[in-house]
Every structure is written in C-alpha cells, then in structure tokens.
C-alpha cells in the first residue's frame, strides 16, 4: 500500500514537471524531447483501489486447484498481508495466530476472472437511461473508455461475487462498433467511484468487433459499413491513420520539435500499436478471425483474444500459431446467424490443440455460473474423447483470463506472492450443487455465506424490497 502511494506521488511529480516546464504549449524545436511514451499522461484516471484489511488466514484440509493446472488433496492455502503466502499439502506449516478455516470436503480455487463483462456499462435495472455500453453513433469510437460509463452501484457486481466467486472482471464496451473503445479491468469490490474499483496496474484493452453487429448497426443507418468487406475496409483505413499518428508522436517524443495534435481515439490505437493496450476482438466466424489475424500482421499489432469465437474450434491450429486466445461460452449457439455453428466442444477442441482458451460470460446471469459453464464444456470435451482433468479445466477460469488481461503476474492462480483472491467452495465446484461459501479479495474476506453482514448491498438496492436478501 505504501509503495503504491510512493509511486503515485512520484508520478505526480513527473507530471507536474512535464506540464510545468518540459513541454510548454509553445514548445520550440530546441526543447528536449520528452522521451518515448512520456509526452502526456497515459493514466489520467488512476486506480484508487485499496485492498481491505484481512487477517492471516489458513484454509486447511481442502482440495486445492491452483489455477495453473495443479491440484492438491488435503491442501492448505495461507493468506497474509493481502497475498497468497503459501500453498501446499497437510504438512505445510501454519503460522501461529493464523485464522483457521476448515476446508474438509470443500474446494479452494483462485478467484474467478471474467474477461468479458458489461456490468456497470449495462447495469441493472436495464432501463434506457442505463444503456451506456455502446457509443453507437459512429463505427469507430476508439476514443471512448468503458470506465467512464461504469456505474459502480450495479447490483450485478454483488451477484457475481457471492454466487459466482468472481474477483476480477474486464468491462468492455459493446460490439456495435468496429472500434468500440477502451476496456477497463476491475477488482470486484464495490467503491464510490470506478477509480476505486480499478485493478492496480492492469493494462488497458481495446474492444474491436467484426461480423454482423457493426454492419447491421451502420448499414441500417445507410452508412458504411453495411457489409463484412465494409467492416474490414473501415478497420484498415483507421489503422492507416493510427500508424501515421504513431509515427508523428514517436518522432516528437524521441526527437522533440513541435508537438503534434492530440486525438483521444488515436491515443488508444497508438497504445495498441505500441503493445501497451491489448486487443479484445468480438468475432464469431472462423473465416473472419482469419482475416483479422492477417490485418493485425499488416499493421503490426497483436490480437490478444477473440471473444465469443463460437467457430474458433475450426481454426484451433491457426489461433495457436498466432498466439491468440479464444474467450468463449460453453454452449451458446444459434441465437444469430454468425453463431449458427456453435458447438459445446469448442473449448475442449481448442484446449486439445494447445491453443490459449478460456471461458467468459458476456452476461450478468452467466457471470454467476462460470464454474458451471466450465463443467459443461469439460464434460462435452470428455464425451468427445479428450482427456482433460478438472484442475486443468480450472485454468479456463483462472490463469488463462489473467494472461489475456495482462495481470497473470498479480492474480489468476494460487502462487505465493500473488494477490489473495480466493474462493472457498462448499463442495466440488464443477458440480451444480456447489456454491461459493467464502470469497477473499486481496486477502480480505468480502463474502461469507454464513454472515449476512458480508453480503454487499449496492446503493440502488438499499431501502428497496428484497434488500439484503439471499440472492
């Protein structure tokens, strides 16, 4: 905590120095260049999230899935100072004074990470006044940031925590646009401001979309794009602009001179071209993913993950070769033409091919049952003949989405030194009869099924029928 404050103070000094002296409005060509990536603040809405206090805790006698494919029977997980400090078998020494949590017959896993959510941007109640997820006024809106739409009082966060065991989630803009805008990664902890929920140090994402949605939304308005080829044409024109923008700013930052004009949309795309912002691309069909992968090569960026990707199984080898992940549902299919070929073995086929794959929800109800989605995908895979263990399947909820969000060094598995984001399940979490019993975020117990005081109630639900009820 103190380190974070020191870092923040240091940044503030740097920024003051920048705006106060090094880059005045009328910078002349003899001003020293600011240096790559340093001409302006890349984090103007910084995280103010602070871990809540926890107590040194030892969960004992539980079955442990570490989130990276490991499993320990009769295992022990130790938490202290907000971190995982030990994971092992019954022989692991328990520090004196640690609060003991009996886990016999129960399971311990890392907190679930949902790489695709719209909580806060499309909150409950879903009234028109809350429709803040798609800036559907132009096909390229890279300038919008999802965090500026997040309503931190969305009751959905509490359900995702208590029923879903979700501790981290990425909030994405919708898929109406080719370039939907910046995503934000949150800790699933209520706060008064979105900054208070922002995952410290998580990189930004850029939401892109291919396929039916952009062409339907803008074709319906009689403008480009109205076809899939129109989608790709607008994409490429935009990347050409972004490349030019990046060239100008790189030149200025490295060599100095007159600063180019700022453009909020282009800032984000430059961040992608610099590898600082990760691309999360809504795409259903295999052939379209193939086009996008080549477009990424053309402009020198990487697609971190295709989302939804119901036909990813058809190109598992191509995804693996490109190092691009697929974030998928277990068995959604046939709800629109581009999802017609969805199959429940999608996840397992990708896993078997060695591709990076994970579960996602894209849904305020589904986010409460991501463990069940994994159980279904796993069972379908096994029926198709793939040998996948339960603990391997848990990577689809843990380390795989952590990697896709660029936070695998901080959370996503039970490894000493990582954030104490942990779920204690009241049974086998791949059974329909199991629910989270306790959830810790950064070592603080923020949900306990046995303690109604540890049941978060958003401002919206306060004073309403059903306030504080089990949900």
């Amino acid at each position, binding site marked *: 905590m103190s380190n974070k404050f020191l870092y923040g103070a240091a940044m503030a000094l740097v920024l003051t120095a920048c705006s106060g002296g090094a880059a005045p409005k009328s910078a002349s060509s003899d001003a020293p260049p600011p240096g790559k990536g340093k001409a302006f603040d890349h984090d103007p809405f910084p995280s103010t999230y602070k871990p809540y206090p926890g107590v040194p805790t030892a969960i004992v006698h539980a079955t442990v899935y570490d989130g990276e494919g490991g499993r320990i029977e009769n295992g022990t997980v130790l938490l202290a100072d907000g971190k995982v400090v030990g994971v092992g078998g019954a022989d692991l020494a328990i520090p004196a004074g640690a609060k003991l949590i009996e886990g016999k017959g129960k399971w311990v896993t890392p907190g679930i990470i949902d790489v695709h959510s719209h909580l806060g941007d499309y909150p409950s*109640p879903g009234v028109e006044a809350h429709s803040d997820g798609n800036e559907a006024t132009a096909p390229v809106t890279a300038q919008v940031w999802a965090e500026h739409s997040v309503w931190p009082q969305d009751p959905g966060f509490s359900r995702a925590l208590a029923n879903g065991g979700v501790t981290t989630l990425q909030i994405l803009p919708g898929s109406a646009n080719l370039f939907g805008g910046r995503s934000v990664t949150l800790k699933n902890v209520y706060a008064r401001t979105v900054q208070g929920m922002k995952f410290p140090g998580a990189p930004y994402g850029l939401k892109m979309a291919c396929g039916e949605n952009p062409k339907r939304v803008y074709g319906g308005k009689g403008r480009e794009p109205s076809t899939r080829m129109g989608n790709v044409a607008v994409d490429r024109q935009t990347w050409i602009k972004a490349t030019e923008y990046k060239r100008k700013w790189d030149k200025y930052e490295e060599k100095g001179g007159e600063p180019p004009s700022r453009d909020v949309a282009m800032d984000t795309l430059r961040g992608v071209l610099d590898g600082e912002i990760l691309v999360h691309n809504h795409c259903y069909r295999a052939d379209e993913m193939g086009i996008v992968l080549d477009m990424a090569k053309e402009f020198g960026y990487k697609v971190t993950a295709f989302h939804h990707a119901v036909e990813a199984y058809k190109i598992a080898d191509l995804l693996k070769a490109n190092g691009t992940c697929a974030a998928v549902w277990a068995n959604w299919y046939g709800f629109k033409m581009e*999802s017609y070929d969805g199959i429940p073995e999608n996840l397992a086929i990708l896993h078997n091919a060695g591709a990076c794959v994970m579960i996602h929800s894209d849904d305020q109800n589904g986010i409460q049952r991501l463990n069940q989605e994994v159980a279904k995908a796993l069972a379908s895979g096994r029926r198709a003949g793939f040998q996948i263990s339960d603990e391997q399947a848990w990577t689809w909820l843990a380390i795989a989405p952590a990697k896709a969000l660029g936070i695998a060094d901080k959370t996503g598995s039970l490894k000493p030194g990582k954030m104490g984001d942990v779920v204690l399940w009241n049974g086998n979490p791949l059974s329909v009869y199991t629910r989270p019993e306790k959830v810790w975020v950064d070592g603080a117990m923020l949900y306990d099924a046995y303690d109604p005081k540890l049941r978060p109630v958003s401002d919206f639900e306060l004073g309403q029928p059903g306030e504080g009820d089990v949900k």
Partner: protein
Amino acid sequence: MTRSTLLRSVGGALCAALSFSSLPALAETIAITGGTVAIGDGSQPIENGTVVIANGRIVAAGAGVAVPASATVIDATGKWVSPGIVAGVSTLGVMEGYGMSEVNDLSAAKSPFSAALDISTAVNPNGQRIGTERSAGITRAFVIPSTGNTMFAGQGAVIDLGTDPDPVTRPRAFQYIELGEEGMHAAGGSRPAAYALLKAALGAAANPASADFVSKDALITRQDAEALAPVLRGTQPLLVHVERASDIRSVLALKKQYPALKLVLVGATEGWMVANEIASARVPVIAAALIDLPEKFESIAATQSNVGRLAKAGVTVAISNADISEGPYESFLPQYAGNLVALTRMPGAQGLDWGAALASITSKPAAAIGMDGEIGSLRAGRRADVVVWDGDPLELASHPTAIFIDGVAQPTVSRQTRLRDRYLDPVEKALPKAYER
C-alpha cells in the same frame, strides 16, 4: 447387458424409427432396467428401477416392475432414467435465431390480429434447434408467441421434439398475455391501457353479438374475440406474464370478475412476496428460473429463492428458461433445476429437494396447463417420453444416452455433433473439410 449392447439396441430402435417413422415403432414394448429411476412427480429417485413402455405410453415405472416377455430390454445399470424435460416457455420450432427475422414467427406487429394468432401453424420440426435441444433430453415444449399489436400474444402450442413430421401435441393449448412492463408497451403505454383493452376484449368474447368489430373505433377483431371465448369459459388456460408483486395481485383479482379463468402466472419474479395469495388462489406458476437481479423495475426483489419460497407456500411451481439472458436454451433447464437443489445448502436460501427440482422441469409445467395426465412424468398412462442419462440428470456432466418420445427412440446425434465430428481435428486432410462426413 453391457454398454455396447445398450448402444446397439438403441441404435436398432433408432433405425426402426427412422425407417418407419410413423408406424410400427409405437407398438414396440420396451423395458429399461437396472437404472436409477426418477418418476418426475416430485418423488425421490428409485434405485434399480424398471420402466416399461408399450404403444407409446408408460405402462409402469419403479421398483419391482415386471418385464414383459415380449419386451426389448435396455440395460440402464449405472444410468439414470427420467421423463423427458418439458420446456415451459419456449420458442422451439418457430424461431431459429434472434438476428434472423426470416426464420422468426414469434410475433406479428403488422398483423390486424393478436389473440387469434395460432402459433401451431408455424412449428417446423426440422429446425436445427429442435434437434440440438432434443439431444440434450428436452422432449416437449410449450411454444409461446410474443406480443405484436396488443398485449395478447396469441395461442401457444404444446409440441414434441421428435423426428416425426407432426410436432404438435396440442394446438391452441393456451392463450398468452403480457400484463407487466412488456404488456403496457404493447397495449399503448400503460398498465391501465392493458387492463382496459383486456376488459373490452373479454366483453366482446362474452357478447360477440353486441360488440363492435367493424367501425374504425373497433378495439378488437371478431377473430380475436372468438379466440378468447375458451379463455373466458375456462377451457383454455390463460398464461399471464407478470413479475411485480403488485401486478401479480392485479392478475389474481381478475378471478373475481371472471371466475372461470384458468390463470397461470409466467415469470412471477416477485411471487415470493405474495406467495400465500397465489397459493390460496390456486394459480400455478411457471417461474423464471434463477433470476436474482433487478434487471427491470418490475423485478426489484428478485432472488433465486423465489421458486423454493413459492413451493413452500404450496404453489404449483415450474421453472422455465425464459427471461434469463443466457441464450434461449431449453437444455439449460436441468442445470437451473440443479441450482435450486444447491440452494438447499445455502444459509437463508430456499431451494427444492431433488425430486421437486426434477418435477419443476417435468410434471410441474405440465400440471400448470392441465396436461400432467398426459406428459411430464413416468407414471402409468403418460406418453412415453423417456430419457436415459449417463448420470444424475441435473448434474452438469450428465448427458442422455437414449431418448424416447411417444415411445419412439430418437437420435442422439444433432447438427452440433456432426460439426464436432468434422472438426475434432481441425486440420484439413486429403480433401477439404466439406468432404468429411
């Protein structure tokens, strides 16, 4: 009998079914032995039970049931046997996808008709969704139209998901009406507008001779009024979609003015707040399963314990997969039912025991529309919709190994399994994938 024998016998029955799809398979006598049998009527599962099917109906199910000498025996040792799942609110057969208006017969906003619309005329048994959902153990569905030009959506149908060409079990099985947030929009903008039109429409149905069907001020067509006559008489159930506690009370009050109405509440997310009133009115509920978010202002008090609390109050309660956003998948029903069992282990929550949970997706939806003598359980005389599962039917890993509808073996393959088999290894071989089948 070993697993492979089971597969062969089911395969044989399947070939027969496909070769003579409308004729002799019905007459076949089948005994499914050795499995854990769940009747679907709310009772707990019976180990080492037997289910006997003849002439497309259940003859007997349970422990100690004799196997007729003529029966084809299917060994279900280590497996579970249950009635087929009944989807209480469904779009199967009339909608292939939301983004495809070309294959969507749910609503007709530009039609002059509403209550008269008969969804049974649109059901296509060859749609991909029917085959896929059937292979997950869904055998019957209540196909429900959506509102168009009024809050009357029209007449729904009960269908089977079999491969036979006639999917309709009961056409015009019920009338469907929206009287909550969706209803106010469809009726012109408010709940009072919906109730005013409802009163006018039922008035016209009661006295068609004195109703105005011809002037430009006519509120309803003659055909719509005629369609509402059986609702008024109570010979056709009226399914009413409402969520809010106060809306539920308004609907229950209709019984005072129209005592013959056979009301069924659909949705009823805040039903737990008025559970005793619903119970004493003897109105069954097809509840939206697992809704626990105030996604609308009419469902502010949503909780997954709604179903359990309604059942505890004595309400006949089924669950549907409607109004939950995880896709329109009837195959999620066993998972939702299983979640209700999970609630029984959560402090402060109210769930269902296993037998009641299975009943909520089999006999209870059937009972809600007065068809539990016909479908939804393995009790003697019911249509032989039977599923053999490789495990507990409510568990996430379980899947059907054999499916019978009206006693006829159904394929367990679907378009999805065909795609799976083509792409188990995604890489092309000697010829393009288009040649692999």
